[in-house]
């Protein structure tokens, strides 16, 4: 992983910073807020590491993003990076953003995030669930830096969380899938069995069942967020078992490509993936992180940053189902528009009873709405999803 970092970090920061550095050093005493490692093991306590010195002095707010995959994954990380660029353009001159991609959800993450602090970033985004503990640690050592963690649930005074209601997109995709399946069997390639992914599988199934209550969903877990060859093989296994519309909660376009090869249907996830399988592609459930990134940066710039937990969906422009294929019947398209409208004005709720779990036990009574707290911790399949949840979670 070292190799990855060296290659990626160096081109992001280097040469352009050198003149800034010199300037920053002269201005250093004027620094009101020391952006660097307060509690972190710095080589010398007297002088902060030179790279850390430039941030406040030179003006623009330095913002760093840690990505779990490559910006070219055409999915999850791609969506984050698109929003980062939009935010940078919107606050042109006032902020300077940088990113490190392919940061593993392990010990390396902490080191990368510490590096970001040392390099003078004062607003740091971590864009995957697995950065939760590392970010908590670094946040407690650096009270003057603001941390934003995507999809997590732990917070601190200077660490808040944000997430998108991806399950709304999954539900809408499910409605489309329900209108397109002939075998009444859908397939989902899952990554890691955490509540977020289970919620998406359930919502996808609920959406499909709103069109036809007999629809079943098969699930294959690959144990990773990004492993295209394996995702493709998992998709093939689902097709072999009779699924004719696939969805994935992994980060690449391999599932869509596999469906394309087999002449079946699939969806884009996180980003518009039409070009990866023009015939198989039914629609893409996309996340638009831009509204949140713009809000977070604005908060940091005008000093109104407060701890909190944000969970935005269709209503806030964070989730959408786009690029719906011509193969999808007009009635279904109209229904999607209606559902989106309902989600926006609050007249429609996805998690509203009666909803039964796999065993037939009623988890939501008629007209009972699923609270966010229940949704965030969801650990069961709804009725119609086949197979057992992998143990442990």
């Amino acid at each position, binding site marked *: 992983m070292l190799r990855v970092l060296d290659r990626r970090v160096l081109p992001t920061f280097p040469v352009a910073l050198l003149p800034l550095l010199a300037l920053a050093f002269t201005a250093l005493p004027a620094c009101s807020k020391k952006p660097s490692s307060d509690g972190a093991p710095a080589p010398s306590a007297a002088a902060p590491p030179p790279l850390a010195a430039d941030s406040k002095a030179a003006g623009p707010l330095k913002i760093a993003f840690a990505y779990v995959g490559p*910006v070219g994954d055409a999915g999850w990380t791609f969506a984050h990076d698109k929003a980062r660029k939009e935010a940078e353009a919107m606050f042109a001159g006032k902020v300077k953003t940088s990113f490190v991609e392919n940061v593993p959800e392990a010990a390396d993450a902490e080191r990368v995030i510490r590096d970001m602090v040392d390099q003078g970033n004062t607003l740091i985004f971590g864009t995957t669930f697995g950065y939760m503990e590392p970010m908590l640690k670094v946040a407690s050592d650096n009270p003057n830096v603001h941390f934003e963690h995507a999809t997590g649930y732990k917070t601190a005074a200077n660490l808040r969380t944000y997430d998108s209601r991806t399950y709304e997109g999954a539900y809408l995709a499910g409605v489309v899938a329900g209108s397109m399946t002939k075998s009444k069997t859908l397939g989902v390639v899952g990554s890691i069995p955490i509540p977020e992914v289970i919620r998406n599988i359930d919502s996808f199934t609920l959406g499909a069942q709103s069109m036809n209550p007999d629809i079943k969903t*098969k*699930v*294959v877990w690959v144990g990773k967020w990004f492993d295209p060859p394996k995702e493709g093989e998992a998709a*093939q*296994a689902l097709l072999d078992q009779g699924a004719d519309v696939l969805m994935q909660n992994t980060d690449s376009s391999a599932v869509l*490509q596999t469906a394309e090869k087999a002449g079946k249907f699939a969806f884009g996830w996180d980003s518009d993936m039409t070009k990866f399988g023009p015939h198989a592609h039914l629609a893409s459930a996309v996340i638009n992180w831009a509204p949140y990134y713009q809000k977070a940066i604005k908060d940091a710039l005008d000093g109104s940053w407060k701890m909190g937990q944000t969970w935005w969906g269709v209503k806030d422009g964070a989730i959408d189902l786009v690029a719906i294929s011509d193969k999808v019947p007009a009635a279904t398209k109209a229904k999607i528009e209606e559902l989106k409208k309902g989600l926006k004005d609050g007249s429609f709720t996805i998690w509203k009873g009666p909803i039964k779990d796999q065993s037939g036990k009623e988890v939501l009574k008629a007209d009972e709405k699923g609270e966010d707290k229940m949704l965030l911790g969801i650990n069961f399949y709804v009725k119609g999803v*086949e197979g*057992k949840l992998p143990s442990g979670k």
Partner: protein
Amino acid sequence: MNELLALFASSIDSGTPLLLAALGLIINERSGVINLGAEGLMLIAAITGFATALATKNDAVALLAGAAAAALFAAFFGFLVIWLNANQYATGLALSLFGSGFSAFVGIRYTQESLAVASHHGLPGLSRLPVLGTALFSHHYIVYVAVLLVAGLSWFLFRSKSGLVLRAVGESPESAQALGYRVRLIRLAAVVIGGALVGLAGAYVSVVSTPLWVEGMIAGKGWIALALTTFATWRPARALLGAYLFGGVTMLQLHLQGRGVNLPVELLTALPYLATIVVLVLISQNPRWIAANMPTSLGKPFYPGA
């Protein structure tokens, strides 16, 4: 029944890159050279093949380009270990590490690209047969090329004179030299041709089975192919069985999940590697098995002047 046939068909698809790479490595090792750089060669071929496919829109050219790139790096490896007598194991490991870094470096700009996916393969006519059509005759043509190569290589190794010479070079290079054969050139040819097959396997992964480029996408297939050569006791037909079996294990665990069999994902994912270890242990139990088949000079340097 249909599902079993489908499982069989996708096991063949999944086993084909393993088979091609294992055949290449068998050629290498029969000549007495062990190339632990297979993983790196496959990665180099995968990025070369993908980039070529993107530029030419022609899969066949892309596969050949991948094979050629791997052959080139294999030739360099061959020069180091055959002429300079560098340690084969260390040099192979270095090639593997180099290949993964180099392919990642070259591949940065390709991570966002995608190839148009061909929606149907298969042998004309035969693929429309009921039942067997899907299971046997609707694969990419490389799958059949690999099967033909098994037959061809078996014939070459055990029925042809050149094959006998190749095996002699791997068993006792001194005797082969005494008979007037140019041991170093023969070994180099074996390394280059074997490297090309390993490359074909790598390019197949990025051009045909998952038409994407992702850093490290070979994901251990090169290492499994190396284990396969031992598993197959350096015989092409057994390599075919082993490759399809490993492909089958990979696909079976995904199928079991789809059927709702509750096994831990992590363990299932590790199955092919566990199978490799079990097989290695089993055949190592019987020294005669290995001794009867393993090229005697495998991994040993040869000094023609000595």
